[in-house]
């Protein structure tokens, strides 16, 4: 995020709570993530008025209502695209995108590669519960085929996707993973994402006790495995190898990859400078180009 968004006198995590009451089911992993977000915002010192929280539709996508910031609760799958526009319009603000696995990788999957590739400066926290929570339990792109869900009474017919591998392939410049049961880790990784200038992606496993009966809190706890201490976060190949372990039942937790690349707004700014852009540019110069 841009540095302008940092407040001088830091706020406490609770200062980032809005007065809309949280509506999730008891035991939902999303609570842990939300608390981690409050902490991360506090630790990164983000000024609420300099932050836009943006979501699509889903249980997780309700999050912006609960955050004290500017916020948009948009359409299913469109959070990232909307956020791209907001970021380019106001590169001085911090942009936080919050949403689910279905929102991000099913209906929103077409936008993901481009945000990452273009290195749009935002922090995307994906609440990965392997299910569609809000619509009451259909399988999502991260569901395991074992799951007998709403539209898959005989089990799922397909392999789950690997969000981390996707994001590394797409060119995200900050890729991390955590688990809602470890709010400290979550907070730290989200804070790192907020502080990173570029497209940050944090995948957070989050149990949905109401509908996902197989990816329980215990399942996730066993699944995750801290990224090795000696892992070099600038080594894309090594990050890819770590990400590939997920399918073998060892999902890396921690920061996998971090790179410096010009952000889209920086490149756009360079174009403005290249043509001596100015708010007072004499429009007659443009008009005159169209004379016969």
């Amino acid at each position: 995020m841009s540095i302008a968004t940092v407040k001088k006198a830091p706020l406490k995590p609770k200062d980032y709570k809005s007065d809309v009451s949280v509506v999730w089911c008891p035991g939902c992993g999303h609570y842990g993530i939300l608390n981690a977000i409050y902490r991360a915002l506090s630790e990164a010192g983000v000024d609420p008025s300099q932050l836009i929280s943006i979501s699509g539709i889903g249980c997780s996508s309700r999050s912006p209502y609960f955050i004290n910031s500017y916020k948009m609760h948009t359409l299913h799958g469109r959070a990232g695209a909307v956020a791209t526009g907001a970021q380019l319009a106001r590169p001085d603000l911090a942009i936080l995108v919050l949403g689910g696995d279905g929102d991000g990788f099913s209906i929103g999957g077409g936008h993901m590669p481009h945000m990452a590739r273009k290195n749009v400066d935002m922090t995307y926290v994906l609440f990965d519960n392997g299910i569609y929570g809000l619509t009451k339990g259909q399988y999502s792109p991260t569901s395991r085929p074992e799951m007998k869900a709403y539209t898959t009474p005989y089990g799922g017919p397909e392999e789950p996707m690997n969000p981390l591998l996707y994001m590394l392939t797409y060119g995200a410049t900050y890729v991390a993973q955590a688990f809602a049961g470890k709010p400290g880790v979550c907070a730290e990784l989200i804070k790192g994402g907020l502080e990173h200038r570029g497209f940050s992606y944090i995948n957070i496993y989050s149990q949905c006790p109401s509908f996902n009966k197989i990816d329980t809190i215990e399942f996730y706890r066993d699944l995750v495995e801290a990224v090795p201490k000696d892992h070099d976060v600038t080594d894309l190949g090594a990050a890819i190898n770590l990400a590939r372990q997920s399918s073998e039942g060892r999902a890396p937790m921690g920061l996998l990859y971090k790179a410096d690349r010009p952000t889209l707004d920086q490149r756009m700014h360079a174009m403005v400078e290249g043509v001596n852009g100015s708010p007072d540019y004499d429009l007659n110069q443009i008009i005159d180009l169209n004379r016969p």
Partner: protein
Amino acid sequence: MEKKDLVIRIAGEGGEGVISTGDFIAAACARAGQEVYTFKTFPAEIKGGYAMYQVRTSLDPLFNQGDTFDILCAFNGEAYEVNRHRLVPGTAFVYDYPAGDFEPEIPDGVIAYPIPMSQTAKDMKSYRSKNMVALGALSALFNINEKTLIEVLVDKFKSKGPENLSFNLEAFHKGKELAAALDKKDLWRVADPVPAKDVLIISGNDAVGLGAILGGIRFYSAYPITPATEIAKFVAVHIPKVMGTLIQAEDEIASISQVLGASYAGKRAMTATSGPGLSLMGEMLGMASMSETPVLVVDVQRGGPGTGMPTKHEQSDLFLAIHGSHGDAPRIVMAVEDVGDCIHMTVEALNLAEYYQCPVILLSDGSLAFSTQTVPAPKPGAIKIVERKRWDGTGEYQRYQASPDGISPMADPGTPQGMHVATGLEHGPAGAPNHSPPNHEAMHRKRFGKLKTVVDFVAPTQVDGEGQADVGIIAWGSTIGVVREAVVRLREEGIKVKGFYPKLMYPMPVVHYEAFAATCNKILVPEVNFQGQLSHFIRAETSIVPISMTICGGVPFTPIQIMNKVREIL
């Protein structure tokens, strides 16, 4: 001769210089003080195929492409074949002969000017000079001002090096000489130059781009699509100059989403597309209605449905523009008449979006997209920019607070204490979800109610004529220009006709329609679509029972078609 205007049609194979020849003539005429209205058809093929460029020019204002041409310049056999049935007595016919790829039959009364274009080019060892030969011949035959023409050529070719320029000029002069050796037997000639007016010559698409820049956009996102892509091309060059950003998105859904995001962030933002793209944007346009976020979509209509006829003219997206989102999703829809409108109504559309905090759809069409026209040069100082109402920072801020005019101030992100949500869920005044029956009804009334004053914000319609008429013609979009001329010519015949030209399509300015209809015995509504889309809305929203007149062959109306219909229903 009586006729004050002149129509020159140049036709040939795409890539042979048909388009540049037309552009040169148009620019030279404009520099010589003429008004210009051009019309092009592009090949549907990827490369090659039949291309046509028609220049209409006159000292008086022009409103459309004309009924037919006075002069045909055919670069090849296909050009002749396509147009031969329009070679009526009196037409001048300039063609590549001998040594072209065809040998035409010259109909009685047609004045033929064979010019060995290909041969001359071949002699000069450059196929690329063929169109310069033709240009020289046309200039000599029809008094296209040589001085301004050469100025135009110099401006065009000087950047390509002195050899290139002198070579092209040489070809031009060869063409002139070849024509001078022929006997001028027709009466067609461009009027002698008069002092040039303060005009631009610009296409509809470029004009939308110019309007966008003048209208203060700072964010533009679009996905390429025929026939709207040139707008992005224009904007891409200029927007960085005013510190703005253009992004080519991954698809139209992303474009409109980005536009919504940028607009929420406080910037004037827009996209442009054609029918297929507009179809994809319906859901997000509903979100803009619901969240009361300003967005502008320019839809350059083309032949539909489906992929349809991408390079062809049609006015068939009115239904979609007005009704294209689920639920009751209010918006403002406007339509441009000509290239001048493309500039000014783009500014206006941006103003409306900002002021009314809602989606605005501005309809252009395939024939205007590529039509270059002379338009008065806009004066930046005279352009009125209306900003959205912004929160003054006092009291407790509620984004969707009720207000007498239904418009609630917005707060740009970054404003201390202005934090709020833009949401697609039904919500109460503060933005929190609220599904209670009275709230939903009240919010509907707010979102629709605020649009009641749109009709006072813009000039929603124009009336052409006074008193009582036998036939009143209601036209929209580029059909208006055709009707304007038909009305003048019908009046010359003594027929009592009036014209009514809505620019604001929705919300419909019903009172204006009714007032107009009260002065006409019959109402005719010509439009280029199959279903009679405007007629549908007129029947639904007014008491008028119009006579619907539709064509949908991918080409605009001609004045004669309208005139014939009026005479028929009189």
